[in-house]
């Protein structure tokens, strides 16, 4: 089984600043996938970024990038140039290559202030 831990229940950042959300996971699988999902107050869960564990290179999507440390089982999300629309719950999730269901952390509530 895979477990995902997000140790920061709430975070705040000023507009245009950079913020990093932490995530650690535990797995016995060799191949797996990691995800960051964003859930705005409207509750539609949206994929922010995904990382395939066998890839060394950290994934990047515009202002969003990850720091994937496989040995440490760490998968943090960096948001650059934060915008008010980034205010949301952020969930880290994993799934083994042999599986299908997502295992979610408890989430980090991010507030971007003007």
């Amino acid at each position, binding site marked *: 089984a895979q477990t995902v831990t997000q140790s920061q229940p709430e975070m705040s950042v000023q507009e245009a600043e950079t913020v990093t959300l932490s995530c650690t996971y535990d797995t016995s699988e060799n191949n797996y996938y990691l995800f960051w999902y964003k859930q705005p107050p409207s509750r539609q869960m949206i994929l922010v970024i995904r990382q395939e564990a066998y890839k060394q290179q950290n994934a990047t999507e515009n202002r969003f990038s990850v720091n994937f440390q496989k040995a440490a089982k760490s998968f943090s999300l960096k948001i650059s140039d934060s915008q008010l629309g980034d205010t949301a719950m952020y969930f880290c999730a994993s799934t083994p290559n042999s599986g299908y269901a997502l295992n*979610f952390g408890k989430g980090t509530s991010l507030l971007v202030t003007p």
Partner: protein
Amino acid sequence: GAGVSQSPRYKVAKRGQDVALRCDPISGHVSLFWYQQALGQGPEFLTYFQNEAQLDKSGLPSDRFFAERPEGSVSTLKIQRTQQEDSAVYLCASRLTGGTDTQYFGPGTRLTVL
């Protein structure tokens, strides 16, 4: 439609009533998932369909929970004799294939059991 839709968006039930929650996945998506999200928590896996076949129902909390996808498209999650602990947001997600592609989530149904 363009995305996953769910209905109703909000449901209030008296304890002991039966409820049915509907999910319309993205057209052509093979895989369909149901998750339960309690207040302040990350989503937790309930059940998984590949086409019309229910391949995994290990996350269903009790035999009061039943899900079906008879024609491999629309899915219904039914909860019989609802209890207060069933109060949660029920999220549906679909995925194009049976592999590890991205899961796309619907807006959820918020169930409140009084």
